[in-house]
């Protein structure tokens, strides 16, 4: 029966890791609801996570919107359905690519940074020092990042939606020679509030996941520079995978039959 032991060990390890993550998440969220609150730290994190992610998210959105227009044109032209391009661009951006791509870009930019910063604080005993200075590390380090992630990602995604649609508009009008007014009319015509709202709900969830994984891996990093590096990698990989999985589940919850 020895061959079963490794399988069991892996499975138990998985359960232990999941349990630790859930306990960490529950504790972090409970600290979000109880005072004291560090308003200035939250503000600083919103700038770090939200404002400084604008360039990378904006660039991602504009090129995605442009390529969407170009690709759907080459596809739909075969069916004489070019008028659907505007709708395809706006629905794809707001429902899917806006939140997912912004989430993934922020995971790479912010998740790694959070894990590295908190991980370095862990291995240099700065987190222990916080506890000896009457400051709860959860409240001082983790809560501001989680709150900032949940608040700023929807804002980022809203901006990404607009920039993405603009990218599609630029390509359609200037390169594919669509009528500008007609394109804008078609963009609005089939867009419903729910399309945008689901995208923003996704964004809030992704913001939570990215900051949570960054904090979790940083907080539990061990063993110097290598441990911090591993924490940063794990934060990016795990939050990216969780974003894609959560994306499917949220889509199924809103639009599934």
């Amino acid at each position: 029966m020895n061959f079963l032991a490794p399988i069991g060990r892996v499975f138990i390890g998985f359960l232990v890791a999941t349990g630790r993550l859930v306990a960490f998440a529950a504790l972090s969220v409970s600290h979000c609801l109880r005072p004291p609150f560090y308003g200035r730290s939250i503000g600083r994190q919103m700038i770090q996570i939200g404002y400084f992610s604008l360039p990378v998210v904006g660039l991602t959105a504009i090129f995605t919107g442009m390529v969407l227009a170009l690709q759907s044109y080459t596809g739909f032209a075969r069916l004489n359905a070019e008028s659907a391009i505007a709708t395809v661009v706006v629905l794809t951006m707001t429902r899917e690519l806006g939140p997912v791509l912004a989430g993934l870009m922020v995971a790479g930019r912010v998740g790694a940074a959070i894990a590295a910063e908190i991980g370095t604080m862990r291995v240099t005993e700065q987190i222990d020092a916080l506890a000896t200075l009457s400051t709860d590390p959860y409240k001082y380090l983790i809560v501001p990042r989680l709150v900032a992630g949940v608040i700023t990602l929807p804002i980022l995604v809203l901006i990404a939606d607009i920039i993405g649609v603009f990218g599609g508009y630029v390509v359609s009008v200037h390169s594919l020679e669509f009528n500008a007014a007609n394109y804008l009319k078609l963009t609005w015509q089939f867009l419903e509030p729910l399309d945008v709202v689901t995208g923003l709900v996704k964004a809030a969830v992704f913001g939570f996941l990215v900051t949570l994984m960054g904090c979790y891996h940083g907080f539990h990093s061990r063993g110097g520079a290598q441990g911090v590096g591993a924490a940063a990698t794990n934060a990016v990989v795990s939050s990216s995978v969780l974003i894609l999985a959560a994306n499917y589940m949220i889509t199924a919850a809103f639009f599934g039959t």
Partner: protein
Amino acid sequence: MSAPTDKTPKIELRGLKKSFGAKTVLDGVDLKVGTGESVVVIGGSGTGKSVMLKCILGLLWPDGGSILIDGADVSALSGRAREARNARIGMLFQGSALFDSLTVWENVAFALQRRSGVSKPEARNIALGKLAQVGLEADVGALSPAELSGGMQKRVALARAIATDPEIVFFDEPTTGLDPIMGDIINRLIVDCVRELGATAVSITHDMASARRIADRIAMLHDGRIVWDGPAGDIESSGNAFVDQFIHGRAEGPIEMAVRR
């Protein structure tokens, strides 16, 4: 600074135990530290000196035994109660553990600003006063910790540890990584600061020069237990084979280093 023996000890450890997995680090540590006394715990690397301090601070949960401060058991405290207890303790970390996102004076004033309704200029003044106490000019206060040398970082960390006038101060390897002269300067500062505060001090170190300078009493930790405990002046004539081997830094003796196992 001799210990008032007729009173309850400031800190008392009774049978403190801590293991990590199969590895037993503390195996029943008994230690009493009197009010205003300065005790130095010596021992080789990896003998659990830091673990002992972290248990007292509540950063690690002991597996067994009890920790008494002023006669009250604090080993099971959590949350607010733990914060209240830690408010009376200052700690100098081995690597200084200064917050690199804050300036020097903000580091020193950190607990002051968080604890009670101390205004920012007030906290800054207290912080600059503490910096002066450890021999740093006021203009250092505006620098970031990364701009300082190791010795200056240690001084800032010392100023931070004593910023709230704690009743108890812990020193984790205060001279590690410093040259002998800077090490001696830090040792003197520790002695002066502790005397000025009237605080109880527990230091852990493997630097004997530092131990002799700081200690009223020295205790030796080996294999998870205190194997010798006595006045600092008696350390040369302890008659204890472990202590003799350690203070003379000999490879041969009853202490087997972990590398051989």
